[in-house]
């Protein structure tokens, strides 16, 4: 893997995904572009419904059955995943690209033991059952689960939510993936647990050397964990750049509003989502021009035309006509 030193593990290029719905074609993602550099942690923030889960489902090739074929490109280590067949995609999942999901209460199988589930995901290895168990135990230890050996015999309902999410992280990192995708992994947990798990995740990421695509609507978590961040709104990336830049000098009005609602301190978090006046636009019948115009305080006439993504600074992108004006 050292043959490609400074490249991106994942490059999403002009990805568009629509769902067929009764009301018509719901354009959940439109021309989304995003890079995950090797060894970096990239955050995605945005309100519910802005297309975060659709984005990661597209990356791992598990879009809902009513999704239309995606357009654009999703390059994983240079290979376009939209072009590979099901078997190849399945071979990558769990091995090179791993997932941690939002709700630890329901994301593990309720009738199989932890040990069984951890062994099963090692099915590609030729190892014996004992060796697989040993690997599971080591992994559980690394995510900070006490007495990991007896946990193997437990069923998920015997563990607390925090423990379950640690198990999920252990499972995801066990095969040493190149990319870990975490879909709001700490949203269901309380704040102290969240901090612990975030720090653990960061340590493990450094040990294993993987990249992480981290989805959250909690800015504090993003600030704490990520190197870079992309802000999504209604199926588009409206601003992206390094966490420093975005948090210290947000340029898109939506980013500014998010930061105003949630100053981004991980300890004093607001449990509720950021509240911004107005509603998300109808993704079936999109308004013309800027998607954020209806909710924007600084909208001008030019906003009835769609703003292009402008390059601002080193590698910051902003989709706003007024980017660069002093607010």
């Amino acid at each position, binding site marked *: 893997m050292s043959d490609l030193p400074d490249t991106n593990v994942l490059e999403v290029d002009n990805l568009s995904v629509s769902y067929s719905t009764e009301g018509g074609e719901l354009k959940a993602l439109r021309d989304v572009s995003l890079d995950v550099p090797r060894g970096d942690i990239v955050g995605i923030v945005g309100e519910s419904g802005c297309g975060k889960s659709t984005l990661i489902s597209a990356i791992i090739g*598990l879009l809902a059955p009513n999704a239309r074929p995606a357009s654009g490109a999703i390059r994983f280590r240079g290979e376009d995943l939209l072009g590979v067949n099901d078997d190849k995609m399945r071979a990558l999942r769990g091995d090179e690209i791993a997932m941690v999901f939002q709700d630890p209460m329901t*994301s593990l*199988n*309720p009738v199989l033991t932890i040990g069984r589930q951890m062994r099963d995901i090692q099915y590609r290895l030729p190892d014996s059952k004992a060796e697989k168990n040993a690997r599971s135990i080591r992994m559980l230890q690394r995510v900070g689960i006490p007495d990991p050996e007896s946990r193997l015999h437990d*069923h998920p*309902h015997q563990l607390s939510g925090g423990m379950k999410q640690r198990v999920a992280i252990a499972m995801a990192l066990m095969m040493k993936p190149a990319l870990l995708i975490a879909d709001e992994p700490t949203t269901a947990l309380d704040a102290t647990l969240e901090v612990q798990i975030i720090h653990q995740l960061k340590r493990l990421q450094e040990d294993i050397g993987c990249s992480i695509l981290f989805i959250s609507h909690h800015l504090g978590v993003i600030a704490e964990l990520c190197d870079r961040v992309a802000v999504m709104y209604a199926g588009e990336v409206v601003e992206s750049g390094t966490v420093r830049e975005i948090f210290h000098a947000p340029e898109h009005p939506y980013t500014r509003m998010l930061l105003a609602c949630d100053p981004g301190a991980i300890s004093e978090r607001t449990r509720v989502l950021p509240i911004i006046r107005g509603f998300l636009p109808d993704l079936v019948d999109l308004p013309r021009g800027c998607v954020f115009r209806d909710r924007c305080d600084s909208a001008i006439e030019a906003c009835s035309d769609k703003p292009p993504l402008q390059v601002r600074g080193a590698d910051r992108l902003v989709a706003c006509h007024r980017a660069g004006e002093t607010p």
Partner: protein
Amino acid sequence: MLRFITRRGALSVLIVVLAVSLLFGMIHMLPGDPASVILGPRATPALRAELNERMGLDRPFIVQLGRFLGNVATGDLGEDPFSRRKVADIVLEQLPFTLTLVFAAIAGATLLGVPLGCYSAIRRGSWLDRLAALLSVAFIAVPSFVVALYALMFFSVQLRWFPAIGAGDSGDLADQARHLVLPAIALGLGWIGYIARLVRASMLEVLEENHVRTARAFGLPERVIIGRYALRIAILPTVTILGLGIGTMLSGALFAEIVFSRPGIGKLLYESVMTRNYPVVMGSVLVTTVFFVACTLASDIVNALLDPRLRESEGR
């Protein structure tokens, strides 16, 4: 788990005792007195009184019931007044035939119904799914004695593929198996579709659950996801229904045994009702009840083995 089994076991015993008492009461209230059935209409009052006393029929109901339950607990189901044989012996002689029939039907229906249900769930809307749906409804709607009659006429009388009557020579397993085929089909046919529908519905539900998405995200092969991760949950309602359904099957077995003139509890019950042989009626119904309750208990236990959450919630 042990605790779960003991609790459910105790409950089952209670249910059997209640059911048996109820049955005993019902027979007690039937018009006509057993003594005149046994002795014939021309028996003298003195003879009748003597028999009543010998059988304890002159005692209060509650005493009779208590004595009956006590006897049952020791395995004594009374005596057949005609042949003077022990009812327990008569019933136990017939029981294996019925058990073989019912289990063959259940096993066949499960082996066909579960894969069919899984397939229908995975390939929802495919032509096989639609055909299965159509046939299921058709076969569920047809009573098993009708299936039995037609199977008999077509496969035995016309095609002569299978024997029509009896249970086969004792000791000749192949012959017994050949005799089992048609009655088992008659009994199990409707169940194939029923099980397939049940499995399909719960499979579709389970496949939507988050843990299935997790399994897919780990790249597990689809056959492992369906066969191990999803089926183990999707099968739970079917196991419960099967446990209860064996009861329905027993009444189906009654018809199958009569149509195919096959020995078994059903036929025994039919004959003893016709001859008003109350002790044997009582004994066969009792054994059937115990069997039915045992089946529901077994399905509860199987479910608890499959789903640790059930063990947990009741075992504490």
